[in-house]
């Protein structure tokens, strides 16, 4: 270590040395790059400005609010309301009570369908599939078969209150017929499985069991269409399957499918929009399926 005041300038770089000397080896005292010093100074300056303008320091039960008075929650809600207001221009029209009339307005429908598609993907596709193709225990929406009705207003009612979800929901309850003997159930299941083929024996004992126990909801001969949430058993629309084994399972344990109610989660206009979208799904693809 040599003295502190003897400055020694390195001839090659022009910088000072530290003054340390290890057997003739000296260390350059290269100064800190000016750029870094400036960036550091600016960062300090920015933080001071931010403390003044933005919420920053805790003060026990409160915090310094900042001169701009920004609040992240308010920012978010205001932004959300702006998004909603932008949509309101055309979405408002879907609050109309007669939504079937909207269906005829092709210009409006063309404008709204991309938004409807996104709503469908976000809310409905998990069960009903991205193109309404259904899933295990979840109805196909694109085939033109309806438990209640394909009318947009009726679909909107289903979306609004759901099925078996709360007191206002549509009810679709297949009770368990486990009080029947296993033999009777097997016979009945076999009969129901043959219904879509149209060659079921209407004089068989199973047919008698059917008209006594099942026809009240499923209609005489299982033709359905009574609007009580019981499907027709003569077409291929049964949700859970109509082979004898599946029907036996249905008879033994019953079915109690649930569709959640969307009122509250979605606005009235959004529900109507979705109803029109779903009605359209069935109309455009239903013909092909049939």
């Amino acid at each position: 270590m040599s003295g502190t005041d003897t400055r020694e300038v390195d001839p090659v770089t022009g910088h000072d040395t530290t003054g340390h000397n290890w057997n003739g080896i000296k260390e350059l005292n290269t100064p800190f790059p000016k750029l870094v010093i400036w960036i550091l100074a600016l960062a300090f300056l920015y933080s001071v400005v931010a403390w003044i303008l933005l919420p920053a320091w805790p003060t026990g039960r409160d915090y310094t609010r900042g001169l701009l008075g920004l609040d992240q929650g308010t920012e978010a809600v205001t932004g959300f309301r702006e998004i909603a207001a932008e949509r309101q221009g055309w979405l408002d029209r879907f609050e109309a009570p007669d939504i079937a009339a909207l269906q005829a307005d092709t210009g409006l429908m063309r404008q709204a369908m991309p938004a409807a598609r996104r709503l469908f993907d976000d809310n409905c596709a998990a069960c009903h599939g991205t193109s309404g193709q259904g899933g295990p225990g979840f109805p196909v929406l694109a085939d033109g078969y309806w438990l209640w009705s394909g009318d947009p207003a009726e679909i909107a009612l289903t979306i609004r209150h759901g099925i078996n979800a709360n007191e206002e929901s549509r009810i679709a309850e297949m009770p368990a017929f486990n009080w029947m003997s296993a033999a009777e159930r097997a016979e009945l299941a076999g009969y129901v499985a043959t219904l879509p083929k149209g060659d079921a024996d209407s004089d068989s004992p199973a047919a008698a069991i059917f008209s006594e126990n099942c026809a009240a909801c499923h209609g005489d001969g299982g033709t359905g269409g009574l609007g009580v949430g019981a499907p027709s058993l003569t077409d291929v629309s049964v949700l859970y399957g109509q082979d004898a084994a599946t029907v036996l399972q249905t008879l033994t344990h019953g079915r109690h499918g649930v569709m959640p109610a969307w009122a509250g989660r979605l606005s009235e206009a959004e529900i109507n929009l979705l109803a029109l979208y779903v009605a359209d799904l069935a109309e455009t693809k239903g013909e092909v399926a049939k």
Partner: protein
Amino acid sequence: MLRLHYNLEKLSMGLVGAIIVAASIGGLVEIAPLFTIDETVAVPDDLRPHTPLELAGREIYIREGCYACHSQMVRSLADEIDRYGPYSLAGESAYDHPMLWGSKRTGPDLARLGGKYSDLWHVEHLVDPRSVVPASIMPAYPWLARPLDTGLLHDKLATLARLGVPYDEAMIAAAKTDALAQSRPDSDGAEAVTVRYGGKVAVRAFDGDPETLTEMDAVVAYLQSLGTLTEAPYRVLAEDRP
């Protein structure tokens, strides 16, 4: 500048002191608010604690590592509100030990999941996610069909009560029977669950079978409870803003 640094550098004890001051400020800003957290974080009046069955589901949610891919916090951003619903409040998870906010979303946020899908959907989806969402990359959890171990529920409620969760003695004593009754809507104890935990508690055979209490019952009950424990976030969203 060089001279200043040159001189400062030699004051090693001064440097130690300066480091302590700088680190303390950082600590103060992060730690000090925690001393008043009971007063600054408002617990909503209508916030209910999880039922024993939901709590068991929550433990399974943690055991299976669901939090690694799913957050339970809607951030205060306009597009998050648009997609998921009102942003999450600190008070909503006042009774959660530990909270499961998370920050990584490989799957969607679950904070407002309750009631969005049917129980059957949850069961199908947990057993085989691809059967309902073909593009899903979520792992399957078929083993949730095994019976639920309710042996520790009593102690869990008692522990949480000590941490300030409002489980009263009757709730703790009935932890095991409540868990069973919540999955058996026709049983004698079913009504007691809604008396203890409020009328909005879902009492259903969550996995479709009221006979056996499975881990699936617990997980689905928990998932269906997410975002339904208080209405406070909806009130905050509807508030007038300056």
